[in-house]
């Protein structure tokens, strides 16, 4: 199993934010996690990436459990995420943001740095080249030297994804990447996610925009009140009664039926 979550339960005091959640993601797959607000999607993300400690159950990547690791250790194993509320490095340039994102693959010792050895120079050169290529890939090269906080909202969200990709992860978790974007911007992000997958990444997506979810997901996991109520392909999910009920209420189904 490439990535799996088994019997994940998270409770805050008396509130069960997530209970007994089990799902898996295969290599190079796009899986969407959807559900009404408060269903526990972001909480699940936080638990997977090590930002939440009060959880039970198991999360494993390539057969190895990653429970209890610090977020940076999880990132070092190739799992990274973006955030629902835009999270960037505000007071540095776009290029610097990407360079910072590339941290994981940079190996420079203190001695290398002080004496500016050949291996240091190569490592810096490689990082800069990769970062330039990534900027170009995302269409941000014209904004290279702009402070990240001065970007437009759509560009900032794009930059956030760029920082995630700069990590060169194997598995990326995107938390509502197109929230608040207009149609053309969200189309752009959608094709970006498909392209990212084509390049070999695995994606777990949380998203409210159903156009995006239905178009690019291989599989969909639906949560409601912290429980998994459905898992299947996009075509099935639109037919499922439990899902319709969770989103639209029981009355809607009765009226239809």
């Amino acid at each position: 199993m490439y990535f799996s979550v088994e019997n994940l339960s998270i409770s805050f005091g008396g509130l069960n934010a997530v209970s007994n959640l089990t799902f898996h993601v295969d290599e190079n797959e796009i899986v969407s996690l959807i559900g009404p607000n408060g269903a526990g999607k972001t909480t699940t993300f936080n638990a997977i990436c090590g930002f939440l400690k009060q959880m039970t159950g198991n999360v494993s990547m390539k057969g190895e459990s990653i429970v209890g690791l610090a977020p940076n250790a999880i990132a070092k194993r190739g799992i990274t995420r973006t955030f629902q509320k835009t999270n960037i490095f505000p007071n540095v340039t776009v290029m610097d943001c990407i360079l910072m994102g590339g941290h994981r693959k940079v190996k420079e010792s203190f001695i290398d740095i002080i004496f500016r050895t050949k291996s240091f120079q190569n490592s810096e050169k490689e990082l800069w080249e990769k970062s330039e290529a990534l900027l170009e890939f995302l269409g941000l090269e014209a904004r290279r030297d702009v402070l990240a906080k001065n970007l437009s909202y759509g560009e900032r969200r794009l930059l956030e994804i760029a920082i995630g990709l700069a990590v060169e992860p194997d598995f990326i978790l995107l938390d509502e990447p197109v929230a608040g974007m207009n149609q053309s911007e969200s189309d752009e992000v959608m094709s970006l996610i498909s392209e990212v997958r084509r390049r070999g990444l695995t994606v777990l997506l949380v998203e409210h925009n159903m156009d995006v979810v239905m178009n690019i997901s291989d599989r969909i996991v639906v949560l409601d009140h912290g429980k998994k109520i459905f898992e299947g392909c996009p075509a099935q999910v639109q037919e499922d009664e439990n899902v319709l009920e969770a989103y639209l209420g029981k009355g809607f189904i009765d009226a239809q039926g």
Partner: protein
Amino acid sequence: MNKTGKKVGYLVLGVALVLAPFIIQDKYFIHLLIEAGLFYMLVAGLNLITGYWGQLTLGHTAFVGLGAYTTAILNAKFNATLPMTLGASIIICLIVSILFGLLVLRLRGPYFVIVSLCFAEMLAIVATNWVDLTNGPMGIPGIETSVISLPGLGELAIESKMGFYYFMLIIVAAMSYIIYRLLHSVIGRASVALRENEILSESVGISAFTYGMIIFVTASIFAGVGGCFYAHYYTYVNPELFGFTYTITMLIMLVIGGKGTFIGPMLGCVVFTILPEMLRGAEYLRDPVLGVILIMVAMFFPHGMGGAIKSIGIKFQNREGR
């Protein structure tokens, strides 16, 4: 400012500093420059912690005092020469900062500020009360002239103002070089990332603890070297070295100079060592005038002098680009 322009700028600055004692014969002015250099040794580290890593520390003097007392005690009791005292100061600050870091680098914001301040105060109390070792509030006077024995070249005595001036220049150059290299490497990027957004940094694989530790230890060693230089130059140390006055002076130099900029601490140290002296003529108006200057700089250049230079540079570059 493009890259070559910057390089030429630093080269001119370097040459000017090397030649300064020959052009300016005034001993007192040389003394002021040495003092500014001494402050740079302390503020440079503070800039790493506060400017780049983004944590405010009020305990930087702890390591200055540690370096100074190590030097004073070794020199007074064991007749240690400068290379030995310098090495010992570095090692002691390395060990203490790692131990201190292991305990408190999980703290952030106001908690870190308070604990760092307490640490400095604690060392001040130790220095005041451990009379056998530190001679208590009297301090340790008469620290010997510093002699460096160069293999094959005989002995080099750093006793004159000139000697100290060049010694200071070497340390300052070495420190700025190290800082420059660190900033343009994975360490500098990681620490700025932590300042900007610690949660995002963690999620891209930057360990807040590891990089915080590297920055903190480097800065503490710089402070220790500064302390060692202080002890040799003034030949006297007392517990006031740990005091809050020094902390405030250092912070003013840093903030007005421009925290988080490379050139800022240099400007801050030079201006705030020399400016108060130039204002001596104003007698009782000196402190108010200094205060007004401080407020003006803080109002009109919120990122300090270094920040102002940077933004002028960017404007200049944009105009060139058009």
